[in-house]
């Protein structure tokens, strides 16, 4: 217990000192996760809205696939993308492995199905009068999709915030595709794993505190979004 208290006190000191290496790790984590969320949103939001509004054969099969992808283990995503991005892989010539770009791609692939699923669920559960009113006002399919997206904006923002939280907290993709290179691809989660194994418990704990604070902020934002609905 004393070990714990001692480490915690050193962790606070590290945080208070504004240690540059610590700041770089936090910035890398936040920036890659934000970029991953932006990339995923570009695809996942339109897919979620359009699949929810459209009626087509195989829709339920597609939903099952999305559900399965949502539960995909992060190491499996890391593994598949590692194969594609490594020197001998399909996209090896771009030299992306162990770069922030590779981490962004990995995290985007990981969270896109979750985001699409959340948006799909939100749009499907919205008041049926919304779609009917769009039709009554003479909206075509595209105008209807746009109106529904705007109307469900709070739920959609909530979905992206939740996905940001997942990207920030995942470790498998960041480790396998980023490589945990100091000052380059070291994120909070990979640093915690590394520092703990090195016995640098205080630094790991300091990063853990930042991560928990970030998770709390994300939840606070979600709560506010849900309350405002």
């Amino acid at each position, binding site marked *: 217990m004393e070990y714990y208290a001692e480490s915690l006190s050193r962790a606070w000191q590290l945080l208070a000192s504004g240690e540059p290496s610590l700041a770089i790790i936090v910035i890398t984590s936040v920036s890659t996760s934000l970029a991953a969320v932006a990339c995923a949103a570009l695809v996942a939001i339109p897919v979620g809205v359009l699949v929810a509004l459209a009626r087509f054969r195989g829709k339920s099969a597609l939903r099952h696939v999305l559900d399965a992808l949502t539960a995909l283990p992060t190491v499996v995503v890391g593994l598949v993308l590692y194969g594609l991005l490594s020197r001998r892989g399909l996209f090896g010539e771009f030299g992306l492995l162990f770069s922030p770009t590779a981490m962004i791609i990995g995290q985007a692939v990981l969270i896109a199905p979750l985001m699409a699923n959340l948006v799909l669920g939100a749009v499907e559960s919205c*008041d049926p*009068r919304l779609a009917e*009113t769009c039709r*009554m*006002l*003479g909206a075509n399919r595209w*105008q209807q999709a746009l109106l529904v997206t705007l*109307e469900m904006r709070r739920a959609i923002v909530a979905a992206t915030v939740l996905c940001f939280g997942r990207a920030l907290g995942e470790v498998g993709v960041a480790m396998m595709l980023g490589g945990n290179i100091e000052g380059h691809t070291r994120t909070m989660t990979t640093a915690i794993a590394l520092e703990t194994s090195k016995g640098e418990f205080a630094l790991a704990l300091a990063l853990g505190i930042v991560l928990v604070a970030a998770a709390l902020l994300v939840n606070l934002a979600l709560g506010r979004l849900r309350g405002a609905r």
Partner: protein
Amino acid sequence: MALYELWDVRLVRAARTVLELPSLDIDEHVITALLGPNGAGKSTLLDALAGLLAPARGTLRYAGNVIDAQSRAALLRRVGYVSQQPWLFDRSVQANVELGLRLRGVTTPAARRRADAALAQLGIETLAARPARELSGGETQRVALARALALAPEVLLLDEPFNALDVTTVDTMKHVLRDLRTAGLRAVVFATHDATLALALADVTLHVSDGRVTRGKRMNLFGGAFDARRHAFDVGGVMVHVAGHIAGGTRIQIDPARIVVSSARLESSLRNVYAGQVIALATDDDGIHVTLDVGLRLQALLSRESVTALGLAPGHAVWAGFDPHAVRVY
């Protein structure tokens, strides 16, 4: 002339046949009420008239043209539809009213102008800047009507438009509806479960019940104007005394069961007494409907015994009387 013609139409919702309409016309330049209890299929019929619901069988014509899968979207753009619980978008009232116009490619300044005019028409221009989600039920109803009117539709379809409204607002809406008939609309169709409203506002009442639609009989309904000096309603020169304060009414209805028919003039408390003659007799489940010409074409509902005792037959001279309380003013 019929604006809508329905022939052998079956309307189905959630795999259940809601209405069977062997033949139904909805006339142009009139206000039509769909009168019936909740769940009778009034909204389903309105949906079909709007082009939101395709008939499972039969033909629906609008202005002479058959409405099919291709022309249904075009029909939707020609009608203004206000549903029972209208959906307003999560934006300002002004933006809601402009929305339909913007979707039709109307420029921003033109859309603003038309939205302003529609809001002013309903006397709710002060709501323009308010967030739509903060409105009361009655305000929501009126904003939805303004949104429909802003589109300058050919037909206005209203589903229970007076449900969420208070008494004063209902009065305003009655005036608006009457004005609309002369405002370039080809028809107004509204659904209601309130027979009084149907009588007050509609020229034609269609009864919707048990999956069928039947044309209502308009018994003893007369148009005219109130003469304050004599406290009576002037129906084409025939004065009808009414009870209570009724300024502003434009129609009266006389309860057929409360008309007293006699072979000689009665000394009685009845304030409305007229001499005339019997035109026709018709028997139905309620009794015998005696049609009288007393300057007005009156229908009295009498028992068989009364008709036999008086020996009523077409051509007989009679007196008809009723109390002011037998008259309802709309």
